[in-house]
């Protein structure tokens, strides 16, 4: 029984971290789908979400819902500005140089936040209290429920958006074939902008909902971004459902590894999985192999 409780605890805490990885992974996948680039500034959007929420509460004295809104809108604005100023002007750049641009942007954003906000770690108050809840022998916080709920909502919403609206379908069309999409009258540039909008909003949301649990600082984005990237790779880069599963699996494996094997290997487990997948199934766990037409 004790062992069972232990496993439940690991699994639940793993699922909540995994849900965050899934959200971040999803925002990687959305930009990858419409542009073919991996946006390494994604982690910074997550950091910005948490930081802006804390600033809204401590400096502007906004209530929590308004602070969340400010954080998401503010980060989205940064995401849009980033696309307009750094991605759009480079019309004929290769994906590789665009990826390098995103790395530069991430260093710039991190540096600016460090200068303006300082190097201290700060905490966001939890959304609804600090009283632990007992679930099947494990204890979780109300914040965990928020994380699960928001993640679930985002997954359902993105599924509906990408499969049942014209804009969503247009974005998917761009991911399959940009030229063909533009030939049938889809504004590819607009779709790219839209993908940056959605993914920076998603990143910010992830940053806000975990900030009460994990606290935030100018440099938290790096690790979170990498883990989200792992999740996206596991899912086969571009598959929404696969990315979510990838994130959850990654979170649970990390947590089980830390609990049952050794906590020293927690990050190593994540990156070991990443390498293994890149070697064995570079197309991702849940994606059928791609076939190139001649």
């Amino acid at each position, binding site marked *: 029984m*004790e062992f069972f409780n*232990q496993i439940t*605890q*690991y699994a639940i*805490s*793993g699922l*909540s*971290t995994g849900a965050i990885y899934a959200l971040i992974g999803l925002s990687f996948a959305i930009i990858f789908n419409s542009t073919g680039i991996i946006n390494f500034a994604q982690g910074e959007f997550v950091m910005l979400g948490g930081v802006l929420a804390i600033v809204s509460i401590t400096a502007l004295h906004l209530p929590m819902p308004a602070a969340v809104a400010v954080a998401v809108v503010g980060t989205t604005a940064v995401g849009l500005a980033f696309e307009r100023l750094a991605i759009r002007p480079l019309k004929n750049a290769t994906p590789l140089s665009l990826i390098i641009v995103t790395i530069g942007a991430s260093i710039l954003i991190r540096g600016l936040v460090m200068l303006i906000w300082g*190097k*201290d*770690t*700060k*905490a966001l108050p939890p959304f609804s209290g*600090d009283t*632990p809840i007992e679930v099947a022998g494990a*204890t*979780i*916080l109300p914040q965990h429920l928020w994380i699960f709920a928001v993640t679930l909502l985002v997954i359902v919403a993105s599924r509906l958006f990408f499969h049942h609206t014209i804009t969503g379908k247009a974005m998917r069309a761009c991911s399959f074939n940009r030229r063909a999409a533009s030939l049938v009258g889809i504004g590819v540039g607009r779709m790219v902008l839209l993908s940056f909008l959605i993914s920076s909003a998603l990143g910010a949301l992830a940053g806000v909902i*975990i900030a009460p*649990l*994990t*606290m935030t*600082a100018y*440099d*938290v984005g790096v*690790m979170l971004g990498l883990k989200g990237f792992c999740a996206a790779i596991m899912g086969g880069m571009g598959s929404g459902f696969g990315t979510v599963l990838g994130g959850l699996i990654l979170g649970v494996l990390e*947590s*089980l590894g*830390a*609990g049952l094997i*050794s*906590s*020293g290997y*927690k*990050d190593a487990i994540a990156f070991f999985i990443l390498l293994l997948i890149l070697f064995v199934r570079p197309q991702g766990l849940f994606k059928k192999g791609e076939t190139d037409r001649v």
Partner: protein
Amino acid sequence: MRRILGSVSLIMLLCSANAALAAAPVKIGALFAVTGPASFLGEPEKNTLELLVKEANAKGGIKGAKIELVIYDTGGDATKAVQLANKLIKNDHVAVIVGPTTTGETMAVIPIAEKEQIPLISCAAGIKITDPVKKWVFKTPANDHVAAEKIFNQAEKLKQKNLALITVSDSFGASGREQLKAMAAKRGFKIVADEVYSPKDTDMTPQLYKIKAAKPDAVICWGTNPGPAVVAKNMHQLGLKIQLYQSHGVASKKFIELAGNEAAQGIMLPAGKLAVYHLLKKSDPQAKLLKDYADDYKKAYGVEPSTFGGYAYDGFQIIGAAVKNGAATPAQIRDEIEKQGRLVGVSGVFKMSPTDHNGLDLSAFEMVRIQNGDWTIVH
């Protein structure tokens, strides 16, 4: 005639040399990790040193000698620290170096200081720095094992025999873990769980659940923010009603703020006296100096000073005392520091000697308990 001319010029030369000696500025070099992962240490150190030098020069210098300060930012990088130490010695011709900030950088710079014969007053805590004693190397933070000993004394008093460790996997945590394990074995404590977490970890429930299963009497966490705050929060979440000890690495209000009053309640830790200076008895030798430092720092930078800034404060004090005693060259400064005797500083009361280049003992720390979001001293 030539002889007279010769002796006159000799006298003139001597005079001018003398005059130059009285007014010759003392050049202090400093290596701090102002940016990078250790910037929470390096920044207050830089601020403190700049503040002290400005104050000293406003008063006309130390015994008439102005202080010149050259600070370089190492970014916490040992390779850069070595390059900059060379630059300080060869280009800037400093008489003494304060820093570097971290143990890794200090260990890398030590061979240069020893070779070039320039006194180095490190602001890093690692015990390796001054044990064994190196001729030109001193340090101002108390050794980690002094803090560990404080915790064990308290655990002994409360009859907590079985201890669990949760330490961070960086050099601070690794050194703490080593010290704790060695000391526990020596003093008859049993380590029933030994967990680690990485500096950027955000969820420690797996480790704590394992600790829970081992049923310890107390948990000792060794790390710097934010990890220990997460540990406190997670213990609260899991409903673990076990005494939690933290290290001196989190001895600032910041920690209580991050963990939240509820989760921080009842945690005990050894804290440098700066954190609790307003609670010290009037008779405490450090009380006045700590209050002055805290007031000056707050006035200059608008924030509370941290224990870490104190390391640079003490470094400057030690040099200042040596210069006051007439030391000017690197060799003179080194010799003066070694025979300085008792010196009240921020980190404690120093008693440097040829066999102890740190000079701090158990009295450097107070055991404190967090109660309703504030410190109380445990007697």
